C-alpha cells in the first residue's frame, strides 16, 4: 500500500522565495497542502493546522499528537529558506526547545539523518506538505511518547 507521502502530489516549479516564479511554486505548495489535508481528514487523521503570511514565506500554526487518549498540542512555525527548495525547511516547535537533544537550538527539530538525504534526492519535487508528512509526522511519533514517559511534557503543558 502506498504511503501518504507517496500520494501527495509532487511539485514541478523549482523556485525559491526570491525567484520570480515563487508565486507558481507557492500555488503548487497550496495545492499539495490542500490535497494532503483532505487525505488526512478523509482518514480521520489530520494532525496540524497552519497558516502562511501573504508572502507564503512565514508559516505558523499548531500540530498535535494523541498518545493514550490524551491530545498533546504544540505550536509550530517555520520559514521558507532563501535557497528553497534545494534546502529543506527547518520546522520549529518552540515549546519543546531544550527539552530533548533530538532538536537544534531554537526548537528546530533534527532531521539530518533521516529526512535530509531523502529531501536532497527528491528536490525540487518535495514541498511543505511532504516535509510535514515525512519529517514532522514521524518525528512526533518517535519523540513525543519518549518525552511523555520521561515526564518532560505532561498533558497540560
Amino acid at each position, binding site marked *: 500500500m502506498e504511503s501518504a507521502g507517496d500520494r501527495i502530489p509532487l511539485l514541478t516549479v523549482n523556485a525559491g522565495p526570491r525567484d520570480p516564479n515563487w508565486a507558481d511554486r*507557492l500555488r503548487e505548495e497550496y*495545492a499539495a497542502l*490542500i490535497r494532503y489535508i483532505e487525505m488526512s*481528514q*478523509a482518514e*480521520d487523521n489530520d494532525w496540524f493546522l497552519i497558516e502562511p503570511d501573504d508572502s507564503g514565506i512565514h508559516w505558523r500554526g499548531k500540530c498535535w499528537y494523541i498518545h493514550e487518549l490524551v491530545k498533546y498540542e504544540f505550536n509550530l512555525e517555520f520559514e521558507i529558506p532563501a535557497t528553497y527548495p534545494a534546502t529543506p525547511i527547518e520546522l520549529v516547535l518552540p515549546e519543546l526547545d531544550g527539552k530533548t537533544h533530538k532538536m537544534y537550538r531554537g526548537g528546530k527539530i533534527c532531521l539530518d539523518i533521516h529526512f535530509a538525504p531523502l529531501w536532497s534526492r527528491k528536490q525540487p519535487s518535495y514541498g511543505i506538505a511532504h516535509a510535514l508528512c515525512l519529517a514532522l509526522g514521524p518525528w512526533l511519533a518517535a519523540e513525543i511518547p519518549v518525552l511523555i514517559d520521561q515526564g518532560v511534557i505532561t498533558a497540560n503543558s
Partner: protein
Amino acid sequence: MEELKRLKAQLMQVQQKQSANRLTDRNIVEIVNKLVGNYSLELVFTLSGKEYLTPKRLEQEIEQEVKKHGRINLIDMPGILNVGVEQIEKHAIIVADKTSDVEFINGQLIANNYLDMIAQEINETLEETGQLPLSDLTYKYSLPMQYLKDRIEARIGTIIYGHFKQNNVLFTDVYVQRHLAKLRGFLRGCEKPTELKNFDQSLVPNQVKDLISNKEIAGSYQNGTFTPSVYLDNIKKEIEDFFALNSYLPYDFVKKIMNITSTPALKNWINKEIGGGIHLENSYAKSEFIEKLRGEVKEALEQHSLINVNTDLNLPTCIEQEDLESLVEEGNTVAGYYICNENCIKKALDLFKNKISLTAEETKSNAKGKKSGTPTIPKQEILNTLAKARFQNADEEFLESLSEILYPKISRLIVEQFEQRSQTADLDSPSIVQEINYLMVCCKSLGGLSKKYTNLKPLKAHLTKTIVNKVFNQLLEIQLKNQGFGSISVNSNNRQAMIERLPEYLREILNKLVAKMSSKDPEGFIAELLDNIKDIPVVSVKQVDKKTERLITHKIKQDLKSRLDECLNENKYGEIVYFAMKLKIANFFAIDVPFEDWALRILTEIYEVTIGNDEAVQCFRFIIDNFKNEDPEMHERIENMLRDIRSQLSG
C-alpha cells in the same frame, strides 16, 4: 496574486473542516461487543461474518422466505439468508409461534397457503378416486400422519369434500353411499356364512353393523364373516331335531355345525338355545334320558354286585367313563368301566380284615419305638391280594381300579383301628395308680395307729367316702371304656347299673369291691383289689413299696408346709393349728382329714399318742376350744401362743 489569496483562503477553509470520524474494523468489533455485553443488544451474525442482523430482522426475513416458498426446509435457509442454521432454527420456532399462518414441523416451516394448496390437490385426487388412505398422503407429502390428518380435517367442508372413516381413510360421501348400497344388496342375497373380502375393508365393519342394527339385513357379523339369520335358524333347527330324536347332543356335533370352538361358549349356547337337559363330559342329554339310564344301572346292580358297563349295560356312545359317577346311586362305586355295589366293596374289604388289624398293631408298636410314618398297605399288595383271591372273577383292569378305590378306605380303617388302640392304652393312666397307691399308704397309717389308738371308725368311714369311692368309680369307668361302652361318667347313683353292663367275671370282682365299700373297710377294699388285679384288664397295681411310700409322704409334707406358710402369713389361727398338727404327725398319718371339729379332735388325740402330750398339743387344744371366742384378750393370748408355735415349727 489573487489566485494565491484564494488558495490560502482555501487552505484555511479546508483545515477548518470537520474531519471524517473514521473507526477501524477492530474498533467497530469492540464497540459492538461492548453494546452486546453492556446494553443487552441482541445481534445475529451472518455466515460471512461481515454483517450483523437483529433477531427481528432475521425473523422478518425467515417469514418472507416461508411465505415466498410455501414450505421450506431449515437446512436450505442458511444459503438464502446467509445466517447459521442454529440461529435460523431458533428464530424459525419463534416465527412459527408468533405468526398464526406459519407452522414449524419436522425441521420445516410451512405456510398456511401451502397447506391450502395441498388440500386442493388432495380434493382433486379424492374426487377422482372416491377414497384416499391417509397413509398414501403422508407418504406423498412426507408429513406426520396426525399433523396431516388435523390439517385436512380443518379444511373438510371448505376445501376438501369428504370424510374420514375408520382406518384413517378419506372418503367422499358419494363413494360411501354407493358402497353401502352394494353391500346391502350383497348381504340380502346371502344364505350361508360369507367372508366380505371383495368390499372396502375400511368401510365394511361399520356399514355391516349399521345395516344389522337398522334391521335392513338379518344376521351377525364377526371376524370379517357375515352369517345370515336364515342360516342360523336352519342350523338351530337341525340341532333341535337331533336332540329331540336322540335325547342327547354330542358336543362335537354342535361345535362342527355351529363353528364354535370353546366348550364354555358351546355350553352357554346350548343352555340358551336348547335347554332342558344335563351337561355330561362330552355331550348334553335330556334329564329323562339320564334318569332312564340310572334306572337301568340300578336294576343291573340289584341282580349283580358287579357290572361291566361295556358288556352288561347298553349305554349310548355319548356316555363317557367320567359320566358314570352321575349315573350311580350313593353307596355304589365306579371303578373304571365297572360299577359295583356296597356289598361288593364290603366283600373286598373283608379280604383285608386281618391285614388291617395286623398293620394297626405294628403301627402302634412302631409309634412306641418313635418311628413315624402313615400306616397303610401298599396298592400293589392290595391288587395282588385281590388277584390271588380271584375276586368276583373280574378282569385285571377292574381289580386295578378297585384297588385304587380300596386303598384310601383301607388306610382310613388302619388309622381308625390304630387310634382306637391308642385310646385304650391311654386308659391305664397313672392317675388311678397314684390314687390306689395313696389309698394303700393311708391304710398303712390306719394299721400303724391301730396299736395305739382305737377310735379309727370315723377315719375309715371318711376314707371310704372320699378316696375309695373315687378309685372305684375310676376303675369302673376304665372297664366300661375298655369294653367299648365309650366314656361314661360313673357316680354312686348309676354305679350299680353300670356294673351290670360288664362281663360276668368283672361284675363279680366289682361287686366284691362294692361290698367292702359298703362295710366301710378301705383295708379290705385294697386287699380285695390286689387279690383280683390279675383278672382286671388295663389297670395294673401292686402292693406299694417303701420308695413310693416315702415319695407320697414327702409330697404330703411339702404340700402341708406351703399351706401352713400361707396361713401363717394371714394369721388364720384355726388353719394354722390344723396344718401344723398334720405336718407334725405326717410320718405316721397320711389321711387327709377335713378342717372340721371332729377331725381336729381326732388329730389332737393322734398327736398325743404319737408325739406325746407336749406344750404344743396343750396349746392346740386350748386354741381349738377357744378359737371361736371373740374376746380381744383371748385373741392376744392365742396370737402369742401361735408366735411360739411358729418359732418352734421354723426351728
